[in-house]
């Protein structure tokens, strides 16, 4: 259900599991029990900083997030990747701290820290022994107010290595990148979160400092803290640390609107790979449309679990694919994409898989699903939502994401809204959005087999004898 890790990616500063994150974003959403948000305290400081705090006493730990309302969506052509590069630079020192001292201090206090950048937001977070929550609060305030990174060029090199690893050497991610770029012509979702290689290479320290000045202000930030603490204490600590921070200029609004797609688009990627793959992207609304809940359930019915329609048809029955998945993020700020992706078994043709997918979607559009199947999908949503709350990090992210799209209280409406969806709603939404004229189809064409790792004839593997110990590597 979480498949397309590579499509709406969180680019983590270090290798933290992105899969976990997306599980929250795609299948979470609503309250397991009515009034899950009842315990949330919300405070807005005079400088505009919004704070959400929730006590959770199940384990002696606390999670602290500073979410900035900035991501690749806010970037300009030619300067793509700036949000993500800035996220990296936030660890490279302040007027008080040396590079990486931030992380060292968190770790010494029994915590872990990281950050990730998405299309819409950038999140900095710590998970820490509850006795030391004051440490991330103080340090996050410091890097919001006193940003002063050192080693710009070497950090840029790190990001370039990250792009090589994630995209250049990863055919699935490379396919998602070109497909998305073809699906969005006018909106900044056109470019990848990590940025185009040449853009990243050209970014300057001045770019980053200016970006921080505009977007890393209290008025553009949201703090979410969940954990084993007293809410009053934490609100007081946050207020003390952040209320003196001044705002920069008001961030400019994102005004671009993607024009309606009128006709199917196709893009092909030739890349070293073993298996062909496809990625289909349909333009769909996100949370701003009531259709989002029907689309969410359509996604589950298509690929949620081994009883889902696409798994049954393509993996079990026709045995055409290694993996098939859908993904849909209704928490996207702007209208988003409904993805269907598949990695084929060897010698299976993309066109044949596309035909089966079209047929399955046509069936969803042609007649209402039966109640049992719809109930199954609803049960999966509910369970997934409860499971998501087992992590305080996920809990915090759910609250934060809902707050950003219109208010954390909406979280309580997710499961009730899912429950209200009827078979006719699903049929209508599928018929309206999942149509070929609204689709971009990306096809990965493997450029020949890779050398066999065990090194057959001409396999490209060289096994060398041990080196002379006097001249060790």
């Amino acid at each position, binding site marked *: 259900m979480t498949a397309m890790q590579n499509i709406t990616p969180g680019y983590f500063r270090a290798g933290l599991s992105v899969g976990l994150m997306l599980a929250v974003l795609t299948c979470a959403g609503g309250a397991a029990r009515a009034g899950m948000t009842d315990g949330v305290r919300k405070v807005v400081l005079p400088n505009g900083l919004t704070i959400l705090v929730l006590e959770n006493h199940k384990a002696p730990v606390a999670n602290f997030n500073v979410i900035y309302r900035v991501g690749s969506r806010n970037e300009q052509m030619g300067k793509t990747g700036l949000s993500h590069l800035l996220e990296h630079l936030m660890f490279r020192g302040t007027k008080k701290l040396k590079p990486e001292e931030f992380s060292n201090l968190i770790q010494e206090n029994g915590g872990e820290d990281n950050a990730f950048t998405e299309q819409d937001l950038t999140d900095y977070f710590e998970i820490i022994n*509850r006795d030391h929550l004051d440490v991330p609060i103080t340090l996050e305030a410091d890097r919001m107010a006193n940003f002063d990174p050192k080693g710009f060029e070497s950090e840029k090199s790190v990001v370039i290595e990250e792009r090589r690893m994630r995209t250049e050497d990863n055919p699935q991610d490379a396919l998602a990148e070109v497909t998305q770029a073809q699906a969005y012509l006018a909106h900044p979702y056109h470019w990848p979160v990590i940025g185009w290689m040449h853009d990243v290479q050209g970014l300057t320290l001045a770019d980053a400092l200016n970006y921080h000045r505009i977007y890393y202000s209290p008025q553009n930030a949201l703090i979410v803290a969940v954990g084993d603490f007293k809410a009053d204490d934490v609100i007081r600590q946050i207020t003390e640390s952040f209320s003196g921070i001044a705002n920069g200029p008001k961030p400019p609004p994102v005004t671009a609107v993607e024009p309606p797609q009128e006709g199917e688009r196709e893009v092909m990627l030739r890349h070293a790979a073993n298996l062909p793959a496809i990625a289909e992207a349909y333009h769909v609304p996100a949370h701003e449309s009531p259709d989002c809940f029907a689309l969410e359930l359509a996604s589950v019915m298509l690929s949620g679990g081994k009883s889902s329609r696409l798994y049954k048809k393509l993996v079990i029955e026709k045995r055409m694919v*290694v993996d098939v998945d859908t993904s849909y993020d209704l928490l996207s700020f702007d209208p988003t994409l409904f993805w269907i992706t598949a990695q084929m078994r060897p010698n299976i043709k993309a066109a044949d898989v596309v035909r089966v997918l079209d047929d399955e979607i046509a069936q969803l559009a042609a007649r209402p699903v039966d109640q049992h199947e719809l109930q199954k999908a609803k049960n999966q949503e509910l369970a997934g939502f409860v499971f998501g709350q087992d992590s305080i990090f996920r809990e915090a992210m759910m609250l934060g994401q809902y707050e950003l799209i219109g208010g954390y209280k909406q979280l309580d409406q997710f499961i009730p809204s899912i429950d209200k969806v009827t078979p006719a709603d699903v049929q209508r939404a599928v018929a309206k959005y999942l149509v070929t004229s609204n689709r971009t189809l990306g096809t990965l064409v493997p450029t020949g087999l890779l050398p066999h790792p065990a090194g057959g004839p001409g396999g490209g593997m060289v096994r060398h004898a041990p080196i002379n110990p006097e001249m*060790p590597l």
Partner: protein
Amino acid sequence: MSGRHRFIGPIVALAIAAALSLPGMAHALEVKRVKLDNGMIVLISPQHNLPMVTAALAFDAGARRDPKGKEGLARLTADSIMEGTRTMSAEELNRKVDFLGSAMDVGAGSDYATASFTSLKRYWRDTLKLLAGVLTQPGLRDDDIARKQAEQIAAIKAAEEEPGYVAQTTFLKQVFGDGSPYGHLPDGTVDTVQQLSAQDVRNFYHEFYRPEGTVAAVAGDIEPDEVIKALREELAPLKGAVAPQRPQPLAPIGPGAHVTAINRDVAQANIILGFGGIARSNPDYYKLQVMNYILGGGGFASRLMKEVRSKAGLVYSIASFFQAALFPGSFQVVLETKNKSANEAIAMVLAQMRRIQESPVSDAEIESAKKFLIGSFPLKLDTQNSIVQFLLQVQIYGLGLDYIDKYPGYIRAVTKEDVQKVAREYLHPDSYILVAVANQSEAGIKVANGAPPSAKQ
């Protein structure tokens, strides 16, 4: 941060979880431990904060049990078990599991095969019944096995698109040799999986899915007595024990660098440098935890990260770890860097290994390492799944139910001298295996006559 270890299977999950420590926890973990009549050991921790249940059963049926030439059999068996029972088709099983909203899986890691589920509280009994059904009476039909076999082969081909995967499979083969329990990932290879038969799978199931010595761990909104009763009823058909395994000790690596350079048209050289390591039972385990934190396990606090990433900007990710499991595993440094930087990065890794052998670590470094290892322990017990993983290790590695209380003492006792001593004993910068999947004409991995330029400290 475990995502950084691109390793597959519970072996690493176990080593990592165990590598994370805990301070005097104000919240004691309530655990009940019982042994069932059939020899299965059950650990249960009630967690009433959410209406859900997480459970896992670790069978002595991991990939280390794969017969020579049949690598991949443990995984194929685990996957095939999930394809229904003698009286229930895979399709019916899948529909039932999904209708409950439960997650359920049987999968093989290197050490153990794990059968697990997560469910809402109100469906835990139904979910357990479904899982027990496939464990006690799996269908193991020829056609289902053939499909899983084809899927496994395709999955291997898909994974081989990742240079890091190719580096890992090659490294394991080099460090452990053929026929060693850890010489391969649970996937096996295309060649070995192709040769497996349905009968191989059925034999493997009968031999290794036995209750005696199997460990079950459950965390969730339940009471221990009802879990014990349910496990007794549902798993009653399982009987007997698995014969112990006694692998050959690891052969030492001869002097010098043993280099395998695999040529691929990639943007980055994917490099693994390492050698044989330790079992989890090794008494130096905690000293090595502290040492490795400082060397390359401590994220941005580690020397490798500081030197190779923060200062030189050569990598996005670099980490070292001991894969400490039931039997001696490997030590690995894993990194990716642009092809042209490969030799420079390798030289820096070797320089840091020598440095930690030659000079004592600083007071600040060892204190920082201990504070993290001790202070961060509660982070490892903050979800039902992490509690289940923890309980499995407590039992499998004989850590004791008071491990939470004892761990800080184990770490506090480690001295700078200990760190240097274990660095000298367990790191081998003059005798190692190096695998580099890279565009070799750009990377020019230096072998035989050329040591790469030595890196600045």
